[in-house]
């Protein structure tokens, strides 16, 4: 297996603040789907932005295809990595096609126009994400799920081996959540892309992802992340195959939430259960 993204001993703190990430080391295999799971404010978006080169780590190194990203210019990096961030609100009324075409800006000719190749990449991306039918509509007139597909199309049009996603299914209903994950999985397999996605939906992550990285907060005293596993102690994260990392025990540990868990066929699931939930008492009684 070749590695695509390699994060080595990376630590990061925002401007004179507390450390957010401490000594993170992992690698994402080429052509695999890696889920990034953890509580709010734990540094998942920070980690994605570090990989995208939008932030610079205080210590440690990040390699993309073996090259250190700190010696890359934005333009070189943009050939390797595309990122879909959480909902940006457009100020001006760009159409869907114009938004997707923006990903090709760095390939434009000297007169500021796209080539035939650029147009073909955009057309393919629109086709793949099923957004071609509203290509000439303004982005603002689309629903949340449609808009998310447009942003994925834009990342696809950038034509990079690596795709980063920051919570691609937030605010989407069940059908659209599944549709986005199906789309990402299709992109991963058909286009042989490496995908790293932050997600709050642990069940979808378990169904679709190959690897998972579980991130814990540094804020409360650095207690061992998993009391049962001495070798993993004191680290802020846990990385491994999705089936081993995304387990009920880990969720209870990291999110501090109790719940039902189980397995149906090849899919495992976890249903969180709060103190006031209907079956909370029965769960506690067992």
């Amino acid at each position, binding site marked *: 297996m070749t590695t695509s993204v390699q994060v080595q001993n990376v630590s990061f703190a925002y401007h004179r603040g507390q450390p957010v990430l401490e000594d993170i080391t992992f690698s994402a295999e080429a052509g695999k789907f890696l889920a990034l799971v953890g509580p709010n404010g734990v540094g998942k978006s920070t980690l994605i932005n570090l990989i995208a080169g939008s932030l610079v780590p205080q210590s440690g190194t990040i390699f993309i295809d073996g090259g250190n990203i700190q010696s890359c210019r934005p333009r070189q990096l*943009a050939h390797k*990595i595309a990122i879909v961030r959480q909902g940006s609100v457009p100020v*001006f009324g760009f159409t869907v096609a*114009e938004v997707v075409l*923006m990903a090709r800006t760095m390939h434009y000719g000297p*007169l500021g126009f796209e080539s035939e190749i650029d147009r073909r990449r955009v057309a393919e991306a629109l086709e793949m994400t099923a957004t071609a039918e509203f290509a000439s509509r303004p982005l603002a007139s689309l629903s949340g799920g449609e808009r998310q597909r447009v942003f994925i199309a834009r990342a696809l049009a*950038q034509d990079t081996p690596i795709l980063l996603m920051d919570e691609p299914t937030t605010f989407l209903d069940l059908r659209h959540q599944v549709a986005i994950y199906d789309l990402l999985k299709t992109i991963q397999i058909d286009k042989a892309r490496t995908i790293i996605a932050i997600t709050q939906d642990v069940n979808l992550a378990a169904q679709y992802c190959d690897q998972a990285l579980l991130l814990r907060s540094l804020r409360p005293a650095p207690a061992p992340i998993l009391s049962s596993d001495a070798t993993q102690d004191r680290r802020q994260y846990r990385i491994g195959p999705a089936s081993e990392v995304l387990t009920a025990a880990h969720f209870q540990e990291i999110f501090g939430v109790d719940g039902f868990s189980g397995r149906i066929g090849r899919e495992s699931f976890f249903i969180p259960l709060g103190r006031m939930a209907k079956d909370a008492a029965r769960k506690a009684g067992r």
Partner: protein
Amino acid sequence: MQQFLSPRTLCLRVAVTAVMLVAVMLLCALVGPERISLRTALAGINGSALPNPDYEILVHIRVPRVVLAAIVGAALAAAGVALQALLRNPLADPYILGISSGAGLGATLAIVGGFSWTLWGRSPVAVFAFAGALGTVWLVWVIGRITGKFHVTGLLLAGVVVNAFFSAVIMFLISMARGQQLHATMFWLMGNMAEEDFFVLWIGAGCVMAGVVSLYFLAPQLNAISFNPVDARSMGIHVERVQLLVFIVSAFVTAIAVSLSGLVGFVGLVVPHAVRLMLGPDHRQLLPIASICGAMFLVVADTAARVIVAPAQLPVGVVTAIVGGPFFLVLLVRYNRKVSWLR
């Protein structure tokens, strides 16, 4: 389906609006308090010995004035487009970053100071206004840069603060001014055209053209940055460099306009909006077409300013505001209807 702007469509549209601009300029040059005939004036080109007042009026009074209005209008509209994109704020105009108050302060100082020298044929008012404009923009940029990454909000706030402070100083100077100075200052602050000689016009036109052309080459990047600067960087665009270049060019172009004509308001706000509503937000098209339309708009407005109260003249800024305001409202209402219909 026409999804993308093709170079051919762009060239065609630019050519059509440019031809319209020339026609409008010619027509407006023939309009004025003194009735002149084009045929008589054209006869004067051959340089006959007989005095030809029509030719004199057309070439030495009307044409310079119309060309000046076109230069100023194009500069303000281009700077408006660029700054609206840069600040990602549809309410931005060329004066938002303090240029107006800086130039105003310079001009007021020159008028109140009563200087009598000239620099390369320019009056002290124009020189002081130009220097004041660029100085203020530099100050705003420095203040804005302290406040953080991509400093867009910081820039806006710095512009507001500097504007408020310099306006207070201008008010102070005005309250100290004497009658004649007061009149000159007020006219300058409302935007006022005068007949300039061709040397000044050539320089102005050259600078503004250069500015618009260089902004055009930044237009694709400006599209992505106006959408989202953070994403633009991830798409391989050197955001900070583009922002700095756009900022410098639009400040320079605005400073030229201001030093030629005082503070002509509304052109830099209304024209970019109107063109964007009609043709969409793609800056490769918006920038050249808005410049040409800005030139057209100001040529017409200045002609009205010359004619309405002839033989006296209005400050052209009064006309642009009176015409521009309601026109803008109509556009907004129509635009909103279009959007709600789409939903």
